[in-house]
């Protein structure tokens, strides 16, 4: 049982990390807290389902298509809505949250409810690790999590666009003086984050059904990880994912499965009381320097 708890705790942690990476990347670069994040995640799921079942597309077309459209929608949300309220944090939150509600409730209104809304697993098999059964899809999730985190690191540290992203993230004003178009980079960052959400959706959603409520859960989990880890800090995201991920699985194993969501909420509350900037948040220190 302990072995199973460890394995599933690890997998659950990677799921949380996958879900939080996109939210964190957008916030880290452009300071936009994208509350439509959960909705974009679910949208990617439905789009890819529509591609597969309504349009009859093969998986290799439907899945990347869904990712691209989701990223495109996110970029448009930035360009047509967020650009107008840029810098007004409360308005940004209301605008993205409103968009998220609109997207999610539209799917509900259109009748996207039921068990038929599922995505196929990448590999339909299961393996034994020690004496615990693990289905291959969960291993795919772990693989995808490691790949996406590694790609993010490589991208921000070794590419031109990545360096511009980090520049904007660290000081938008200075980036502007160097001729970098901050709004264009911010739009990219929102699209990039949404693309990450879509990729996460494609590997995680095959474990269950695509449901509107999943959008709210994903947003809560992403927020919990980012708040506990410190917004914008990649190391923080990884550490917080594992803290909350294992806490959730331990709760499910030894207490009640239905309490899993509570763990995220309690984690948010606890960190806000103890260390509001998060475990690895560095915004505070920087402000003090200046």
């Amino acid at each position, binding site marked *: 049982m302990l072995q199973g708890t460890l394995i599933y705790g690890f997998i659950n942690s990677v799921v949380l990390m996958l879900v939080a990476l996109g939210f964190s990347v957008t916030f880290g670069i452009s300071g936009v807290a994208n509350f439509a994040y959960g909705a974009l995640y679910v949208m990617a799921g439905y789009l890819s389902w529509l591609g597969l079942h309504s349009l009859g597309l093969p998986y290799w077309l439907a899945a990347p298509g869904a990712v691209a459209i989701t990223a495109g929608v996110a970029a448009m949300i930035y360009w047509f809505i967020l650009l107008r309220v840029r810098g007004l944090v409360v308005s940004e939150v209301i605008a993205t949250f409103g968009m998220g509600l609109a997207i999610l409730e539209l799917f509900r209104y259109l009748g996207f409810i039921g068990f038929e809304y599922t995505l196929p697993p990448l590999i339909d098999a299961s393996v034994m690790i020690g004496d615990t059964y693990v289905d291959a899809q969960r291993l795919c999730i772990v693989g995808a999590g490691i790949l996406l985190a590694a790609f993010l690191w490589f991208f921000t540290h070794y590419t031109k666009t990545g360096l*511009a992203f980090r520049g904007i993230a*660290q*000081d938008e004003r200075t980036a502007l003086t160097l001729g970098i*178009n901050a709004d264009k980079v911010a739009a990219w960052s929102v699209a990039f984050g949404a693309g990450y959400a879509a990729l996460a959706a494609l590997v995680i959603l095959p474990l269950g059904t695509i449901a509107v409520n999943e959008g709210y859960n994903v947003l809560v989990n992403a927020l919990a990880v980012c708040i506990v880890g410190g917004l914008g800090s990649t190391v923080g995201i990884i550490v917080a994912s594992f803290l909350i991920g294992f806490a959730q699985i331990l709760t499910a194993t030894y207490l009640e499965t239905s309490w899993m969501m509570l763990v995220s909420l309690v984690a948010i509350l606890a960190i806000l009381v103890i260390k509001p900037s998060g475990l690895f948040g560095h915004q505070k220190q920087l402000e003090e320097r200046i």
Partner: protein
Amino acid sequence: MSEKTILQAQDLSKNFGGVKAVDGVSFSLRRNEVLGVIGPNGSGKTTLANLITGFVKPSRGKVIFDGKNITGMAPYKVADLGIARSFQMVKPFYQLPAFKNLNVALLSPRLRRLSGGRFGDRDAMAKDLLEEVGFERDSWVITHQAASLPHGYLKRLELAKCMALQPEIIVLDELFSGLSLAEVASMVPVIEKLVAQGKTLVMIEHRLKELFRIADRVIVLNFGQKIAEGVPAEVMEDPQVRGAYLGSEAEE
């Protein structure tokens, strides 16, 4: 506008609520000139820099750069056209190593254009620039996070960042503030070299002695208005300037 004029401010004004931060300021800047902007605290110097570089949109007036109206243009576009600026409060990318700070500038669309798409070895270019402003090329300093550098180094980094853009004009907002006498003394030759290379500079300064050594011409602001303009020695004789600016300094 004469052929030598590179920048012209016409009746530039900015109101913040009821406060006239800059009030009808006009001046022109000749190519390869060093223009000093002085005045007491709150006289509108930084707002003037912000108006020129696009960080603040003017309430009235125009900015003409190289025959082109750039009034109210976005800051990144102004930078792209060739006006670099530094900030009074240093604004490096704190979590990048010093030389990587310059890489961001070296990747800008302007540099891509100027170099014809051939960037070459950016790390080496960044290190060249840092050497020009007085960093030791092989020291550990340039590979450390900017956050760990002392103020004097960050000021140099700020200047190097402006230079990296290969601009026509550099607007320096109190580059010398917070530096020791020795540090300023070591910066002056760097500025003189820039002038020798044909750059045009606008220097907002409180350190008058050093400024006057470099500046060809000075304009004096007080309560947002230009109260004097001329060569440094002349301006200092102006009774209005003495009253507004030097008078207040003498009292301190």
